[in-house]
């Protein structure tokens, strides 16, 4: 019998069978970037959010808003990626806040994020209903109510969510490539046919943001970038935890910045600066396709509108699963009821979290259908802006948390640019953006000053944060162990036994 005692700490030379077997499924930067962008559903933003934003807010500085927010988020990403290396559960910003600013703030951030992500997901049902019914009518002539199609998507999302079917990565990638290709085609055609024959750069002028209320469209830009932080979620599955994640994050910001800025600008060039707001208000999400029909022929425009519908559906499925996973992680660490942290035995899906999301979905569709609210502007657009505002608050809190975290652990990273300067710049910029946007919500939503929506949107987040702080303090009193695990997500199970060096 072999006498072979393996000593603890003995290094092993080659990567070995185990590592290479497990590495076979590892992701590279391109794969991670693709996954993030496909979940971001570019067409939903370009054809839905940007056109509605031109129409509802009447602000023309949208292209430059994407540039500004892109730069701010790229600076923010420096600290974000640095902190991601030092904490577990790095995909979720509430974990950053919990580690940087304390657990009560962490729970507050978790609830804010939950409300914001929920709003983003629910908003998609309205947009899908309207656009899909338009496509159905154009193709086979049936006039279906928007809510019927929205319920159809809801049923699909519910079934896929509980059965843990994520849309096939290849399918999503093909859809995304199709979307990007056709958006680029549209943009080139728009630039080739500028209104009045003049190629105007006015919408790219940063001065445009200085006009009254224009800063509110920065929320739209934030909305477009949501998901860029998700690369850290894949860090466990990435080939190189640090490099892959960083490359994918910056690549994602760059691609989104170029694509959305260019598209928003091209749209304004094709319609003309004086016309863009009024035409977008009149035609809403159809503006892009009517322009495309004019310059490229109806066939291309039709392909575009079908891709718009599939883009919204894909986004609804991805977001549903993302929200369910988020609630699952919170249930797993006892911030939400433990039920949310349980999975389906057969499918391994976060069953109860998914079902709750499903219940909210049908409530949302029923409310809008019964009340007769506009599913496009009051549903999709307002919901999206509400979610975008929440994410903006979340980014701001994360930026402050990053500064505080590195302030408390000065030994973790030597480079002060990474740990102090960049996060501070990002925090100041995000604070300015958040303040300006909150004060000018009336412009963004296209409502008169003092409209109740401008109060309840920020107030909802304030309430969510307040509830979070109170709940955290209750947990500290009543369930000390659960309190100590806040921010650990699925790692909560091993919090007592495994070593978390920086805990």
């Amino acid at each position, binding site marked *: 019998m072999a006498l072979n005692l393996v000593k603890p700490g003995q290094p092993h030379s080659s990567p070995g069978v185990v590592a290479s077997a497990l590495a076979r499924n590892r992701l590279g930067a391109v794969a991670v970037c693709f996954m993030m962008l496909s979940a971001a559903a570019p067409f939903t933003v370009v054809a839905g959010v940007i056109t509605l934003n031109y129409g509802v807010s009447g602000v023309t500085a949208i292209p430059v808003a994407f540039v500004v927010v892109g730069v701010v988020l790229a600076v923010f990403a420096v600290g974000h990626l640095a902190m991601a290396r030092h904490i577990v559960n790095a995909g979720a910003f509430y974990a950053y806040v919990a580690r940087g600013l304390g657990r009560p703030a962490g729970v507050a951030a978790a609830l804010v994020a939950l409300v914001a992500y929920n709003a983003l997901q629910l908003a998609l049902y309205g947009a899908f209903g309207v656009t899909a019914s338009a496509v159905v009518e154009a193709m086979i002539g049936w006039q279906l109510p928007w809510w019927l199609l929205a319920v159809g998507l809801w049923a699909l999302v519910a079934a896929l969510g509980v059965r843990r079917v994520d849309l096939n990565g290849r399918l999503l990638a093909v859809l995304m490539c199709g979307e990007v290709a056709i958006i680029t085609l549209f943009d080139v055609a728009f630039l080739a046919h500028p209104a009045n024959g003049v190629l105007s750069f006015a919408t790219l002028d940063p001065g445009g943001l200085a006009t009254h209320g224009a800063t509110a469209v920065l929320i739209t830009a934030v909305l477009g970038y949501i998901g860029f932080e998700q690369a850290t*979620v894949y860090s466990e599955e990435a080939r190189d935890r640090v490099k892959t994640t960083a490359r994918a994050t910056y690549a994602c910001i760059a691609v989104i910045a170029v694509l959305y800025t260019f598209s928003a600008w091209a749209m304004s060039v094709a319609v003309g600066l004086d016309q863009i707001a009024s035409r977008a208000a009149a035609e809403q999400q159809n503006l892009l396709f009517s322009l495309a029909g004019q310059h490229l022929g109806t066939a291309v425009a039709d392909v575009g509108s079908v891709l718009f519908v599939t883009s919204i559906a894909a986004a609804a499925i991805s977001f549903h699963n993302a929200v369910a996973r988020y609630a*699952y992680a919170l249930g797993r660490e006892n911030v939400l009821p433990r039920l949310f942290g349980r999975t389906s035995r057969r499918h391994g899906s976060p069953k109860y979290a998914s079902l709750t999301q499903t219940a909210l979905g049908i409530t949302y569709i029923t409310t809008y259908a019964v009340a007769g609210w506009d599913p496009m502007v009051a549903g999709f657009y307002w919901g999206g802006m509400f979610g975008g505002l929440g994410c903006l608050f979340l980014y701001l809190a994360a930026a402050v948390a990053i500064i505080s975290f590195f302030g408390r652990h000065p030994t973790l990273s030597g480079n002060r640019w990474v740990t102090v300067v960049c996060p501070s710049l990002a925090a100041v910029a995000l604070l300015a953006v958040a303040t300006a946007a909150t004060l000018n919500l009336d412009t963004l939503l296209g409502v008169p000053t003092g409209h109740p929506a401008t109060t309840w949107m920020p107030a909802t987040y304030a309430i969510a944060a307040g509830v979070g702080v109170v709940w955290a303090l209750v947990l500290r009193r009543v369930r000390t162990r659960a309190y100590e695990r806040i921010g650990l997500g*699925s790692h909560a*199970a*091993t919090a007592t036994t*495994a070593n978390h060096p920086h805990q």
Partner: protein
Amino acid sequence: MSPPNPIADDFCLLAHDEYTGKPLLHGTALGLGLAAGLLTELCLHGCMSVYNGQLLPDLRLMPAEPVAHQVLELVCSERHDLATWLQFLARDARERVGQRLTDKGAVYREQRRWSRQTRFVPVNPDKAAWPAIRLRRALLENQLTYADRILAALVVVTELSGRVLLWDGNVSRAALPPLVNALPPPLREVARCTEQVVGQVVLAH
């Protein structure tokens, strides 16, 4: 009374339907639960310990049982942390344990025609249902053996509790999780780590 079954065998029978051999757990949790079962077997045999997320195997105490022997040689061959080993062993744990049960004559292998999946169908459904019944009764009477406690912990961390609790309310769901904390440290680490990896898989895309 015959000596108790290896933990992984009992867990395997628990996690499959006693008549059809259909898995009652989704693939990842099943694999991880079985992998954890195989590692706890080594701990019980005394040829391995776990400390601070690392395996401390000792080849001087070779288990006589071939599967346990293979797993021990494997974990001696390379150094990785517990979570990595669980993920690695989970890949073919069902095959290993299924084969061991087949060799004992407890199950037979059945190739599914359409899905091309392998099922291990119990030869005697009554015997196959025994680990579940035994564990339930032990929980009811609060007389768990050492092996029962480990098995119960694996059931908790893979979220298979419904199988043991069944429809009677006599054993409350709340009675199960404390069993994990009551295990000796190495086994508790294996159980907690399994729980964490199962959770990670749910969150992974």
